[in-house]
């Protein structure tokens, strides 16, 4: 379970998160929506400690992410993350991209790491690209590689940061299909997204962020079909 309690985060004078409380249970899919600059992505970066927080707590399976005593590299193995820009490692083949961390972080043999990586790559539909270099692939394929690379660490949680927003429209579908696949596998996921229809379809919970606070949270039906707060209504009327 991921417990987020009273999290505040500032960049200099700019307070981006103003006290976020959010619980994500195992097996749940939580989508975070909201305007740019509302703090959605920052929260994801704070969950796996790429960004520090100013106050509050983020607890993953009982471990405080921002406690100085926490072995953050170990904890991150439980928190797969996929970024807006896919960030494939250009000097490695598709297979090497996905097998690198299982081998050098988890200490698996090369064979075992490649076996796990191959399984995940086939799962996301890249089974025929194993020995290709990522720079020769489309954005959608590279994003699916990024998902497989994160999955190869076999994390119980996956964090998705606007994974379709840098893609050409015709490539969005294949990445969303991959996320649906993970949902069907029972993966616990936090998705920061601008794809409202997708959020409605896959989420157990939807949180609407506004200026660093959760303005409204609930089931997709509650938040997206029947929003109670004026800000949510305004936002949805603009994006739907």
């Amino acid at each position, binding site marked *: 379970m991921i417990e987020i309690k009273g999290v505040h985060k500032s960049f200099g004078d700019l307070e981006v998160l103003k006290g976020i409380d959010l619980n994500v249970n195992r097996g749940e899919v939580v989508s975070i929506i909201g305007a740019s600059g509302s703090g959605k992505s920052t929260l994801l970066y704070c969950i796996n400690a*790429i960004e520090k927080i100013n106050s509050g707590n983020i607890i993953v399976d009982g471990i405080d992410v921002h406690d100085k005593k926490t072995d953050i590299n170990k904890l991150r193995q439980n928190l797969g993350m996929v970024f807006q820009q896919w960030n494939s490692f250009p000097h*490695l083949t598709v297979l090497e991209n996905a097998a690198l961390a299982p081998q050098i972080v988890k200490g698996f043999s090369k064979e075992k790491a490649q076996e796990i990586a191959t399984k995940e790559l086939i799962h996301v539909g890249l089974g025929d690209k194993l020995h290709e270099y990522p720079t020769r692939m489309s954005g959608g394929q590279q994003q699916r590689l990024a998902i497989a690379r994160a999955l190869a660490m076999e994390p119980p949680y996956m964090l998705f940061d606007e994974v379709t927003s840098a893609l050409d429209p015709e490539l969005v579908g294949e990445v969303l299909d991959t996320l649906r696949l993970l949902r069907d596998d029972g993966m616990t996921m936090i998705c920061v997204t601008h794809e409202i229809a997708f959020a409605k379809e896959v989420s157990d919970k939807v949180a609407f962020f506004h200026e660093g606070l959760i303005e409204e949270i609930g089931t997709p039906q509650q938040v997206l079909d029947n929003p109670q707060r004026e800000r949510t209504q305004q936002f949805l009327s603009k994006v739907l």
Partner: protein
Amino acid sequence: MNNYEFHWNVVFDAFPQLLSGAFTTVHVSVLSMLVGIVIAVLLALGKLSNNKVFYHFANIWIEIARNTPALFLIYMAYFGLGAYGIHLSPYLAVFSALVFINAGYLAETFRGGFQSIPTTQYSAAKSLGMNNIKVYRYVILPQMFRRIYHPMTNQFVWSILMSSLGILVGMNELSGETQRLQSTSFRTLEFFMVAAAMYFVITKLVLFTSSLIAKKVFKGELS
């Protein structure tokens, strides 16, 4: 006007001396490159450092190396240091000037290569649970090395050609040797033509080997 007669026999007879000069040329270029690389890494770190003393030291070194003629640096090493009682051999004078310049140029190459790796690559590697050493060892440095490889080759070629300034302080590298041989035989044109061809062959060999290595080592994106 056009009645100059080429006499190549003198040059062929002197070929062993020319080869020995060429060896010295390659020797001083390789060594000054290797030492230059080590210093350049430190200077690049200095330029990226928050420590003011370290930063300014690196900056001054780099600025002087990149904005003064190589000839002056060789003269200062050979004649100038004499004022302080330091008497360098021609070889050492050329070697130190080349090290100084190589380090300055390569430092900027390294800094640029380092800064050209997007910070998102760090985030991606970190998010997979890699510690800093692994992030650099497996993700950052291999990519950086690809980007600085060709500029480094260029710098090496530059060192080979620039070492010919050794002629001015009496060093027995290829140019110095050529100068000595032509002054005793008066076959100026022949000797300098052959020496030029030898420089050409050496640099072409370097470039050829370099691209062979690149093809073997760098697969994927930048090959």
